[in-house]
């Protein structure tokens, strides 16, 4: 290369993989961990519980983002798979019927029911996927909508597992041997509440899920998903098996939704068929659209936004929790807010909050560059442009670029 690299390399363009590499980002992450730690230790049980539900929601949002964000397949069915996960957990981990007609459970360890909740959901996804994924766009959306209604019907009627219309109240809680999250005893002299134990477990599980999805997204399978999302015909010409790619996304998405469903039911201890409604699915769609499609951090941010804000509004006692005959409830206010935000983000920043953050970072990087090297920075814009338009003569034989005319 004869040309100076400072002109040549678009070094100022941050890359996706670089999101965690800059010191600024590391600082943000450390700050986040400190805030989480402070809430965990001093925030009180209410706030820890808000974080717990947010983390569960984030796992499900990651699942939806795999299918809809990365692979581009519309799905309204996530509530169905969450329900499957929850009832699998209830059946495997729940207690034996205490009175006639009570829902049954096998009382197995959480090391069994938690993975099983994901696996059963994934298997059902693998069963439905081949049929559903023949359809595209809106058709797939409607079939997954149908899944939610079929789920409602099944959950109401399979009383021995779901408890029927009234719901089930004995969802299992994680624990080891004699120790259970439900009534935690001190371990090594440390005494934590139920919600705090859940916090530790969920933080671990969310981190695992996030790293896993992030890894898939930047390797072969994830690249294939995104290519399928962007252009199916071109993707298959490049050698991607469309069916395999979509089914893989569908199964992984169902797995994560199943695990999240089991954790959700375990955390709240109760679920009725109405828990797994269309509204829940729409909340997750809102979460990934607002947080950021095809982004791990976007899933987490979006889940926090959609699921933590209503609780926060209630906790601050700004608004009553449910609608009275007059006045606005916190649930309604946050719902209308995220409805509006879906529209606003799709209009102005389709990459969601993550896109917004990236934009701010880019602007601040530019600002830094300008401040640092006054003249070189101002000269950079036109010269970079010039490089882009200038296609260099390539010579494969010598594997070097022919010398350029000095500009």
């Amino acid at each position, binding site marked *: 290369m004869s040309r100076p690299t400072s002109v040549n390399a678009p070094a100022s363009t941050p890359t996706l993989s670089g999101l965690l590499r800059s010191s600024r980002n590391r600082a943000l992450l450390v700050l986040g961990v400190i805030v989480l730690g402070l809430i965990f230790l001093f925030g009180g049980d209410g706030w820890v519980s808000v974080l717990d539900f947010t983390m569960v929601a984030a796992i499900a949002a990651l699942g939806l983002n795999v299918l809809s964000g990365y692979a581009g397949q519309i799905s309204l069915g996530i509530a169905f798979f969450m329900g499957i996960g929850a009832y699998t957990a209830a059946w495997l981990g729940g207690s034996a019927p205490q009175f006639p007609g009570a829902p049954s459970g096998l009382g197995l360890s959480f090391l069994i029911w938690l993975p099983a909740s994901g696996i059963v959901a994934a298997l059902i996804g693998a069963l439905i996927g081949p049929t559903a994924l023949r359809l595209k766009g809106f058709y797939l959306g409607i079939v997954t909508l149908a899944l939610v209604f079929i789920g409602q019907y099944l959950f109401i009627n399979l009383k021995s597992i779901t408890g029927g219309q009234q719901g089930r109240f004995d969802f299992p809680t994680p624990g080891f041997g004699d120790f259970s999250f439900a009534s935690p005893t001190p371990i090594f002299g440390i005494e934590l509440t139920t919600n705090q134990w859940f916090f530790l477990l969920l933080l671990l599980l969310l981190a695992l899920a996030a790293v896993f999805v992030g890894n898939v997204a930047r390797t072969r399978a994830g690249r294939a998903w995104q290519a399928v999302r962007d252009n199916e015909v071109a993707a298959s010409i490049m050698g991607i098996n469309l069916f395999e790619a979509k089914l893989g996304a569908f199964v992984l998405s169902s797995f994560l939704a199943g695990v999240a469903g089991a954790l959700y039911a375990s955390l709240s201890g109760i679920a009725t068929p109405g828990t797994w409604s269309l509204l829940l699915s729409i909340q997750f*769609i809102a979460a990934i659209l607002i947080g950021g499609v095809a982004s791990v951090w976007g899933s987490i941010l979006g889940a926090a936004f959609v699921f933590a804000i209503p609780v926060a509004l209630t906790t601050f006692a700004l608004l009553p929790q449910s609608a009275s005959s007059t006045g606005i409830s916190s649930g309604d206010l946050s719902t209308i807010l995220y409805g509006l935000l879906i*529209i606003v983000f799709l209009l102005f920043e389709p990459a969601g909050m993550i896109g917004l953050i990236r934009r701010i970072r880019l602007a601040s990087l530019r600002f830094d560059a300008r401040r640092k090297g006054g003249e070189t920075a101002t000269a950079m814009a036109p010269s970079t442009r010039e490089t882009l338009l200038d296609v260099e003569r390539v010579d494969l034989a010598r594997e070097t670029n022919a010398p350029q005319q000095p500009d």
Partner: protein
Amino acid sequence: MSTFIQLVFSGLALGCDYALIALGFTIIFKASEVINFAQGEFLLVGTFAVSVAMFSWRLGFFPALLIGIVVTVLIGVLFERIVLRRMIGRPPFTIIMVTIGLDVVLLTAVTMIVGANSPASPAPFDILSAITIGSVKFGANAIASIVVTALIVAALYAFLRYTRYGLAMRATAIDQEAARAMGIKISTVYALAWGISGAIATIGGVFLAAGAGNPAFDVGLGQAALVAFPAIILGGLDSIPGAVVGGIIIGLVYVLTQGYEPAFLGTNFHTIAPYLVMILVLLVRPYGLFGTRKVERV
């Protein structure tokens, strides 16, 4: 036998309501290839507006209906103009999602205003009035929905066939670029489509609310309208006769399964029967019974 006739009649009437809802989808889709997930909430908003005008403002049914229609037409046209106009050329995924956003906003807005009260179902007659022939009851609302649906379909047909704007809409549906070249204003066509669809939504909503036979309806009205999705899928997204036939089939399936629901199927099987029929049809014909398949290119 009379049970069967009763069920078929009720199914037909409900099917006509679904046909109206399905028509709302189809008209928008034909004109602009947008699938309006918020159509169900258009029904809710329109019906709610009629109810408020009739029972709070003490207007007659027909002036109230007009107000309801104006409200949904305005929402539709404004949404198209303010939001969708800026999203032309974006992937279908995004456009479906933005209508889901509208759905959430409309549903929640009505929920907030309604609070814990249930609005009364508006109708020009006592919603329970009926003519009984033999042992079969022909409800006034059911008769009205069949007659009005027939009238609307006929009017729509005449509009698309014989009027200047109707022809413009059809031309745009076939080939947008060619239509533009012929001097058709695409924005007018879009506005028309959203307007017509909004108006039909209010009428369908009023029938659907009264058809339930309760003096009041709740905010779940829009969700009940989601059963129209199987109807448009059966009929194919872009076919107007398909929407009508699909709507009627779904209405019949719903009412007949409800009427003959065997005990072993548990409760509420009829709520999923339309979806099961839809899935069966899609297994055989992925683009519906009347829909056309799009050719994709590289």
